[in-house]
């Protein structure tokens, strides 16, 4: 039981007041039962973590609560009153605020515009910007959410944008805050800042629901945890009375054992970057004199906050851009110019960052996507005509070997779940025994089961002799898989460091650009051991 915090009203029955009640929420999408009679309570000052794998129904449930979807059965009650179904307006009026996983902000408008839009009567002849600004600044000071009201949202960092989202809800007097995967895009320090904000909010009597599939967040921020699996509420626990193993088992429905990376002697170099600089069209250095060598049997992890040059590094290694200066060497032969097809032929396997945008063509069949990188290979086409039978059989093999669920060779790819799409990409790239694997955010948005599958496959490829370049914003992933790791910040890369030699706190500082003091402990000697 959480201690009753100051500022809370107590009910006659003792304990904090119930502010929100979900009663028997059921939601079907066609044959799929997304939410199955879910009932939940939320109390004043409580932080409830909603934990579950992708497709467990977390986001659906929160979208019903906020009025984006209409529940088939059941109802939502806030502060003792039933909400009109499927009306975000009713939810807002009842004091419910939602921070979506994909922020709902307009980039070209100012912070103040984004916060006040819709809060005034539409037909007022003028907007009271002075009052809006004062209230925004006052809320910012009170809850430690500092932002410049006049800044364009486009110029803000991800952490700042999230603050704007929270301020939007507070500005409308939200007493219940729903956060959908709030830390997915934050550095460890920003996450710590967010949790600090949540503590201030709950001390003020707000109630918070946050959706997550990361264990450590549940333990560092929640009072209560509700676990969803396959649309059902399988358990509700006091956070203090449970542990990681129990929650993982509740989430997946069976015991999960993450694959472990066994130490392995590294082999010869597969990829060497030396003094590589890549510039954007307007002349900014996206990669600034980068040195990096990847050996066989080695996973190199690149950590960093998104937008610090990871995309440029991935494009360089996939052959989409050529460096302005410096050399790229693949298997002891230099790489000249930009030639993505050539990189594939020379044994570079690519797992792109965004599987929807650059990984797969959603409207095309599975077999077509599987040969997309090598349809000109004589195995798949002869005299300029595709060998569809061969390609379909190949697709069947990959589907079987990589356990892609719910797909046949002719299934349209966009009908697959994120995890199965990723398996398809793994199948396409790993089926041909690559020398180098470029894995950009390989498990973003995947659930625990799929994550351990992808990790297992990457480690298998490493054991088979591939070098793996793992670019990820997920530190848990970097620390679980990498033999050596480095941090990228503003296009510059730290020297490689053995995984055991750095702590999460140090990585956080490096990711924020504070290299002095942290790197002194891991001098350039670390680099000499590999290059």
């Amino acid at each position: 039981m959480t201690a009753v915090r100051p500022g809370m009203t107590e009910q006659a029955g003792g304990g904090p007041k119930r502010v929100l009640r979900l009663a028997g929420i059921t939601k079907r999408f066609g044959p799929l039962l997304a939410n199955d009679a879910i009932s939940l309570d939320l109390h004043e000052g409580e932080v409830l973590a909603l934990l579950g794998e992708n497709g467990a129904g977390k986001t659906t449930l929160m979208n019903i609560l906020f009025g984006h979807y209409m529940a088939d059965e059941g109802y939502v009650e806030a502060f003792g009153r039933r909400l009109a179904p499927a009306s975000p307006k009713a939810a807002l009026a009842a004091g419910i605020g939602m921070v979506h996983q994909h922020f709902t902000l307009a980039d070209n408008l100012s912070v103040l515009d984004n916060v006040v839009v819709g809060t005034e009567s539409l037909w007022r002849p003028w907007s009271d910007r002075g009052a809006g600004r004062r209230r925004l600044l006052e809320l910012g000071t009170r809850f430690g959410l500092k932002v410049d009201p006049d800044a364009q949202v486009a110029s803000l960092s991800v952490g700042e944008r999230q603050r704007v989202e929270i301020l939007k809800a507070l500005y409308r007097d939200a007493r219940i805050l729903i956060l959908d995967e709030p830390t997915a895009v934050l550095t460890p320090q920003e996450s710590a800042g967010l949790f600090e904000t949540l503590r201030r909010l709950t001390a003020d009597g707000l109630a918070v629901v946050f959706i997550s599939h990361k264990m450590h967040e549940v333990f560092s921020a929640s009072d209560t945890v509700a676990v969803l699996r396959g649309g059902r509420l399988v358990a509700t626990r006091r956070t203090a009375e449970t542990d990681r193993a129990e929650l993982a088992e509740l989430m997946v429905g069976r015991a999960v054992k993450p694959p472990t990376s066994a130490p392995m002697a590294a082999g010869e170099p597969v990829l060497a970057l030396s003094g590589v600089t890549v510039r954007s069209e307007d002349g900014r250095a996206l990669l600034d004199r980068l040195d990096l060598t990847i050996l066989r049997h080695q996973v190199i992890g690149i950590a960093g906050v998104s937008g610090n040059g990871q995309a440029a590094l991935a494009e360089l290694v996939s052959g989409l851009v050529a460096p302005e200066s410096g050399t790229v060497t693949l298997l002891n032969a230099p790489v000249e110019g930009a030639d993505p097809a050539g990189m594939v032929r020379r044994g570079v396997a690519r797992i792109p960052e965004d599987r929807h945008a650059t990984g797969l063509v959603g409207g095309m069949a599975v077999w077509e996507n599987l040969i997309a990188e090598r349809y000109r290979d004589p195995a798949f086409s002869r005299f300029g005509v595709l060998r569809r039978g061969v390609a379909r059989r190949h697709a069947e093999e990959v589907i079987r070997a990589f356990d892609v669920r719910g797909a046949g060779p002719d299934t349209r790819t966009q009908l697959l779940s994120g995890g199965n799409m990723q398996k398809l990409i793994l199948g396409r790239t790993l089926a041909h025994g690559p020398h180098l694997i470029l894995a950009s955010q390989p498990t973003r948005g995947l659930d625990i089961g799929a994550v351990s599958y992808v990790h297992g496959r990457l480690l298998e490829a490493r054991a088979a002799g591939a070098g793996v370049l793992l670019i990820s914003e997920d530190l848990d992933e970097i620390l679980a898989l990498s033999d050596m790791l480095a941090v990228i910040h503003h296009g510059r890369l730290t020297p490689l460091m053995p995984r055991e030699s750095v702590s999460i706190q140090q990585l956080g500082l490096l990711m924020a650009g504070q290299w002095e003091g942290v790197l002194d402990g891991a001098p350039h000697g670390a680099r000499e051991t590999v290059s």
Partner: protein
Amino acid sequence: MAEIFDLLVSAAFWTATLRIATPYILGTLGELVCERAGVLNLGIEGIMTLGAMAGWMAVYQGADLWTGVAVAALCGGLLGLLHAGLTVPLGLSQHVAGIGVTLLGTSLSYFVYRLVLPQASTPPTIEPFQPLPIPGLSDIPVLGPALFSQTALTYLALLLVGLVAYVLYRTPVGLALRMVGENPAAAEAQGLSVTGLRVGAVVAGSALMGLAGSFLTLSAFNAFFFNMVNGRGWICIALVVFASWQPGKALLGALLFAAFDAFQLRLQQITGGVLPYQLFLMLPYLLSILALVLMSRRAAYPRALMIPYRKGER
């Protein structure tokens, strides 16, 4: 050379510029309002044609001039409602729907005109708006006749530039409108009705386009001809891009284009047939392409422009 200089400082040149600019100002404002809310309105050409025909027809049938203007705006709004209905709640392609609206508006205008006046070989005329000199101000040399002895619709167009800018940037409804053009999901999450705002913006913008059309038949000329709008609507679409979706710059763009047009007309007279006149007709379009290239490379377009919004989808 001296002749060109004389031309550029003559009151007649600037008076013509402002007169030519008026339909562009109104049409560009209308398109800008639609696009700020995230809806491209390629129906503009047809809406202007219908506005020109309907406004003129109302006056020809005995209504007074301002009633004619109101009829033009109303007809524009109705075609706008059709375009909005197709593109907002139904989420159809804005390009295809817009071209459909243009074809419908244009042919409907010709059809109605022929239906009412089956025999007319020379277009019948009405008594159009007369210049309305503002006492005192119109006596200022050059500036006076150019700015202050225009017809009422030109003054209205200039007032509307300020009004549209004020509504967009200073009122809650203007902010809401810009928000649905930037990120409709964000607007929805703030409890706003994306459908209502977008439909409203397209109807209001199309009413402005109807006004633009009526200027042609009720002020610039006194009759309705086939092919009267003659691509002015398409120029307005380019001017919106030129203006980076800002009303003040839209005024500037319209004036600039009109100045090129007035300039080429006079240049034809000055050079007196040495060069083929088609070359001069081309000039404003060439210059506006050049200006477009220079001005709009970094334009911050409304992010949700041309993207239909369907509730519950990402």
